[in-house]
């Protein structure tokens, strides 16, 4: 699998570590109700198809990426820096 790191270019997935769905970026507020935290930590859409997920370029530039990927075909269609995804809101 090739991950198109915005900083390094397309790199072998061996350089990366996947974490899980990009919803990990949507951390609830400290005082959000418990259900919001349960959703955030545990519940998943878990799509069979296109998804957005977090990969860490640990053996590369150290960037966390939001990768667009299909869970059925494994086709990777894009990647952005998690930092920029957050900044874009």
């Amino acid at each position, binding site marked *: 699998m090739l991950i198109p790191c915005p900083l390094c270019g397309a790199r072998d997935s061996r350089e990366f570590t996947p974490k899980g769905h990009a919803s990990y970026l949507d951390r609830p507020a400290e005082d959000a109700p418990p259900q919001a935290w349960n959703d955030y930590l545990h519940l998943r859409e878990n799509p069979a198809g296109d998804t957005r997920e977090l990969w*860490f370029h*640990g053996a590369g530039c150290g960037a966390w990426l939001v990768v667009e990927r299909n869970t059925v075909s494994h086709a990777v269609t894009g990647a952005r820096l998690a930092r920029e995804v957050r900044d874009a809101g």
Partner: protein
Amino acid sequence: MRVDGRGLIDRSQPVTFKFDGRSVTGYKGDTVASALLGKGVRLMARSFKYHRPRGVLTAGSEEPNALLEVGQGAAMTPNTRATVQEIYSGLTVQSQNRIGPLDRDLLSINDALWPFLSAGFYYKTFMWPRAFWEKLYEPVIRRAAGLGRITRDASPERHEKAFAFCDVLVIGGGPAGLMAALTAAKGGADVILAEETPELGGRLLSDGQEIDGTPAAYWVEDIVKELQATGRVRVMTRTTVTGAYDDGSYGALERVARHVAPADDLPPECFWRIRARQAVLAAGAHERPIAFPMNDRPGIMLAGAVRTYLNRYGVSPGRNVTIFATNDDAHRTAVELMDAGVKVAAVIDSRTGVTAKGDYRLIEGGQVIGTKGRQGLRQITYRAGSRTDTLITDCLAMSGGWNPAVHLTCHLGARPVWDADAKMFLPAPGAVPGLTPAGSCNGAMSTAACLSEGLEAGKAALAALGRPAPQGVSLPEAEDDPGRTQALWYVEGKGRAWLDFANDVTTKDVKLAAAEGYASVEHMKRYTTQGMAPDQGKSSNINALALLADSTGRGIPETGTTTYRPPFIPVTMGAMGAFAEGHGFAPERRTTSDAAARGRGAPMIEAGLWFRPSYFPAPGETTWREACDREVAMVRNAVGVVDVSTLGKIDIQGPDAGAFLDFVYTNMFSTLKVGRARYGLMLREDGHVMDDGTTARLGDHHYVMTTTTAAAGQVMAHLEFVAQGLRPDLDVRIISATEQWAQFSVAGPLSRELLNGVLDQPIDDESFPFMACGAVKVHGVTGRLFRISFSGEHAYEIAVPARYGDALYRDLVARAEALGGGAYGMEALNVLRIEKGFITHSEIHGRVTAHDIGMQRMLSQKKDFVGKAAAARPGLLEPGRERLVGLRPVEAEGRLTAGARLFKEGDPHKRVLDQGYVTSVGYSPTLGHMIGLGFLRHGPECEGQEIVMVDHLRKVKTRVQVVNPVFFDPDGGRARG
């Protein structure tokens, strides 16, 4: 028998090898199979279940029958295809899966028992009495099953593994592959051309054809020269592409030196990981056998294989050959044999209205319905119309048509598509992104069509790469008749008709599976084991599913195929796992003091990828305990030195560094004064403890975090995630500096005295109080000093750039020894920390909360931090949770063991009454008895109680008292003092 004037073998170079102890001489270029056939040896193997005599069926890697053990002793490799193994002088091969000599295998008794060994018979018996399965049935079955042997030693062979990259990977060097490679290379692409056999040309070398009016083999020679002239083609012969993976990733196995005598400077095999921007699959096709009664005797083989033996190896597998054909292609076998002077008894064609292509006897509308010959074919019986007759023959060349080798197109999950006209499964369009099938693997069954598809595939690859089609590549002229094929999957008749030769699956088995309701193709496969042998059903799966389709009244497309999985051919594990033997499995990380510690005789133990000294034996000490006790006392009474460089050291800088640390730690760090360090507790977002360590503030915007050795990588990734993903609003940058700094702990009452000997500016309590930190000069070198303690003693950690680590360590230890102290190791470090109740990952094992380890007060109420919300879940706060306690034996000599369980006195030792467990233990020379840390329901609430520690495994039962985990110096005066 050898045939003059044919073959690519070098008759000037005879080669002698051993088969089952007998010397056999063939020629350079021969495989074991061709050399044996050249000598008239047809019996090469025994079948898996019935132990029937078998010869070769094929001439390629898809061979189901002729599997051999190659080599001797620890290097012996089983299950090697006689059709692939090239011969060399000194080669030793032997037949396998037999008891006694090959021609008198005792297990051939199974063949007489065949009526009782039908598909799935073992699911229906061997159930009584129950205990007999492990004691009797299974051992007998295991011994009878299996194929070749491996010895339990490591092989002396050393394979390799490598990466390769190209614009276009061409898989297969036959007519389609050659044209594709030439086109791509001339178009400016970098090409890897992988060919399974030793020679490029594919079936052009097996079939006597002409291209552009010259013999095809000459045309191949010209093309190979042209390929070389481009300078862009890397030809990899003896290389099989084994799997297609995501994004143009392919696995390939190269048999680098399997064809020559073992040599030290050559790996036998190499496993390649190839990344190709585009690929062309030109893998060819596998010929189909026909499942007629008793079709498995040595001498019965595929018609195409007979041509390969004739034209590639100069061998005729028989002196009097019969051809059983369902198609035009197989008639070539007769023509070419006759051209070579081999007698052809007849061509039996299942079709009618066929014209002979030569002067041979043609039996139209015929089917072979029986054979004779115990260890090799002697006679066949055929039926043509209402007539039944026999023929004396020693070789039957059969052809049921061809199956395109679609395998790689299915590796990403696509299913092949049934072509009802051509009677074959073809690659699904777009099955593997970037992979274009061409030639007979794509259903092109004439040479002209293969050449044309190869050219087009090369162009398509170039187009995908954004390159124009090249000038000067023209399509050569070749035979353009794909021939006609009749579908004939099996022939009804008396006796068993084999589908899967390798697993001894017959038509009866498939019919039985269908009758018993195992009607899905996957059920049939799994119930009968059809296609599960080393050849993965390459020559048999399609016949079997066609029979299943007929037996269940469904069509072939509705029945479908089983799943084609990688690898395409079996891959030597030693190649796929090359370099991992012994220490190669993982990198070794060594601290700067490694050589000094080893020099002092310290046994080194693994700490993750690092090595750390276990203890430093002194003269006269005979056990590790003596050394450990001495080292602990040394630290408590004088001074000790230990390398702590393996702990993660993370440099954190930026205006928001303090706010960042406030967010990743449960406690406050923005309030920490410059020049001070603080213990920090870090949670996962799920509220459980991730790690702990001290973090020092070196400047307004500069902190250095230490992590545990075990969690250094995890914490680093976590910090980056928080910084980039959760708090991009914070201006902070993070980098690991673990390898850049050598860091040593200097601990004990004399630690300052020692340090002042190496520091350019001496320190005192005022300039460097407990938890102080700062830059220092060490023998003129800028370093860092932290007054922190993991032993409870007055202690420091001193850090210098790694290049000075070795020198400083040796200096520190020498000075310590002069003060009555010295180096200490992990054993003593562990006892020292248990005495103080300090935790490690033995305690924070991933299931504990701050509350469980008594650190609930470190959860700041003033701010949000990672893990705060989840840590407030009711289940994580219950007082009845297992919480950290200290444990001491009630009797001074009582033994504690880590991993033991805790029970209330008098309770039966049942899970439901379990109260907790012991995590860390050690003998405290300071206190004179063993001490332990553990987790106990209600934890600190039980302090003072006597309970029972039970270790069934080590047969230890000890009465223990629950105490505060801080065994020594509870008010911490020694560290501060």
